[in-house]
């Protein structure tokens, strides 16, 4: 079982859209996928029409009083399950703080699922916190959506430095440009130059297009309801890069 996490300290950069579409594409390839919506805003849960509620809240999960397995819901797509968000997730930091080895807690919670799933995708809330640290420790691959600005790249470097200081397991980092506006010259230029210069950048580029926004209307991944669009093609390319980077195999 591999664990991917979509992570960025900033909000609104396409983390959830990436998590939802990559999870869907993985399931369509026959992988058994679990998407954990860790964001109390519950956008991923909403997109799959699943109520953002976990019995006992995040505390029951973190404390192990309720097995993660019990809270999982099937989506409308074969092979793709979702662990819904819950509003109590806003306090996950506090809950983790009172747990033993908080930075390793998430990995511990997911360990019993390794026979059941080939891939777990963690959709993280925008923050830098104990939860983020626990996610970074659990993940095999960090998918980092970036808006093409100089500051974004600086943030990526900070993240890369941070995870390279981990003892033992270190996640691989795969950054990619998201919400690219083809009308902005800076966007075009940065998106063209950086992936060629850096090995931690994907070549796929997710455009800022309305069809991605329409996911909240269709309540489905764009790769499912508009698979022939440019956005869907770019998500597919990103999925293939992520899959190959993580060396994902079935079973």
């Amino acid at each position, binding site marked *: 079982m591999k664990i991917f996490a979509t992570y960025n300290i900033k909000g609104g950069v396409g983390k959830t859209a990436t998590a939802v579409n990559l999870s869907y594409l993985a399931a369509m390839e026959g992988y058994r996928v679990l998407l954990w919506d860790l964001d109390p805003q519950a956008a991923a849960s909403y997109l799959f*029409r*699943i109520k953002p509620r976990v019995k006992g809240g995040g505390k029951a999960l973190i404390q192990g009083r309720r097995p993660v397995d019990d809270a*999982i*819901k*099937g*989506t*409308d797509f074969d092979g793709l*399950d979702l662990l819904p968000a819950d509003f109590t997730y806003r306090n996950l930091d506090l809950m983790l703080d009172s747990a033993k080895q908080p930075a390793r807690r998430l990995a511990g919670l997911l360990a019993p699922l390794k026979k059941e799933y080939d891939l777990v995708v963690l959709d993280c809330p925008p923050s830098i916190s104990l939860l983020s640290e626990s996610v970074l420790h659990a993940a095999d691959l960090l998918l980092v959506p970036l808006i093409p600005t100089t500051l974004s790249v600086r943030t990526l470097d900070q993240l890369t430095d941070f995870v390279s200081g981990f003892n033992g397991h270190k996640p691989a980092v795969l950054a990619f440009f998201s919400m690219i506006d083809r009308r902005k010259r800076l966007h075009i230029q940065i998106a063209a130059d950086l992936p060629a210069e850096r090995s931690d950048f994907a070549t796929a580029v997710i455009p800022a297009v309305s069809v991605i926004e329409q996911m909240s209307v269709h*309540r489905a991944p764009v790769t499912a309801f508009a698979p022939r669009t440019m956005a869907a093609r770019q998500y597919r390319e990103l999925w293939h890069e992520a899959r190959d980077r993580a060396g994902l195999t079935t079973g």
Partner: protein
Amino acid sequence: MPVASREFVLHDSAGTGPDLLRAVAGAASDSIAWANGGPVSTYRRTWLDTFDWRLYRAGLTLEQVTASAGAILTLTGRDGEVLASERLQRGAATWPSLLTALPDGPLRELLEPVAGVRALSPVAKAASSVAELRALNADAKTIARLAVDRMSVTFPAHAIAPARLSLSPVRGYVGQTEKAARALAALPGVGRGRGSALETALAAAGRRPGELPGKAAAIALTPAMPARAAMAAILAELLGSLEANVPGTVKDVDTEFLHDLRIAVRRTRSALKLCCNALPDGLAARFAPEFRWLGELTTPTRDLDVYLLGFDSMAAGLVSATEIELAPFRDYLLKSRAVAHRHLVRGLRSARFRRLTADWRAALEGVGAPSKRTTVAQLADTKIGIAHRRALRAGQNLTASSPSESLHDLRKRCKELRYVVEMFGSLHDPAQRWQAVRELKALQDCLGEFQDAEVQRDEIRAFAAQMLADRTAPAETLLAMGEIAAGLALRQRAARARFDHAFANFASPPSKARLAALARMSAA
């Protein structure tokens, strides 16, 4: 954790035609709606089992599903749980086939102890057309999937099965699925689904799984039944079993067809010999020689089958020689077996065989009421008693120096006793019967080992002489065969050493009392 699906059947009387959505739309409510779930998929299904339903009796179902993407064999357990599956290469297995035709893997490993040497043959075939509907909650979220399977059965008879509805909850939505199931069950024309798809297919074709051409023990005798009528019924059932095994023997599907055919012949011969006075005058005398001919016709092939079935374990027991050195011997056995089987097939296709079965059936159907009225219970009591005394007599004077023929003769008497007990089996309590024949079985095993080892040792000498004459055996093969002959001699000696103890147990007062009680029970 997967949750079991809820099964229903949709009877044609529901009058819904092909519009499934309309059919189940009536099961909608404020909280549940239904939507089409995608295109209809079609595939061919073949259920496989051994001729004597070993898989079914073990609670297993083996199904081959063939669609445009290829064929998959799936083995499921009693609750429909998948135990193993195997994707088949195109043209990898044509049925009937022995398990050796399957690729190595978990599926074959699970099947081997159950099917043994028996071939897998189709027991039912159907074409399935499966449509899927989705049950949606108020958020238009799929909470369950309803598969509607319309099966058109093509074997063992053409028939249309009632549509099977299978409602499977999406994970985490069991409660809401229960509501949908209740609404579905309340629809007119929808009934609770019982039985597997195989059972549904067979029921549509007017059959049931596990149906076997009867064994004598399967006949339900009543103690007051006239002996003559009972014997006619038993013999007719044995004829049914004999005939049912002929096609499989002729096609050489697996070695058990011939084995079962021979059992039916031997039981018939024993019944004719032991119970001739319960049959019309002259009937046994007229048919006994013909059944003897039939028995002898089948012997060479069966002897070679026994050799070949035990070949690997024989070869594995070699100490000095190697298995490779035995290869010419195996080839020789295979060729001899092919010749013997051709001879057997000619016999089973002959006018003599056809005449035998036709005349025998006509004779049994014409058996009338006797002037002297003996019940089957009285007959069983007498015959079990006689056969028991004969077996005891044949064994009581045997000593270490008795010739092998005396042990062979005792083996025949024991077989007769066993057959006569089984023939009247439905008059007895099964547990008591098992207790009564326990020592008899142990004695039979010992005598069987003794005689088989001797016969095989004699045969291997004859094979060696023939192979030498044919110049088909290198010296190392003959030496390896000699080692096998020596092993057989040791086996025979060991069986002889066990004999005294086995017979003493059989002849012990408690064992005699149990068999005597069984005989009396027939008449009770």
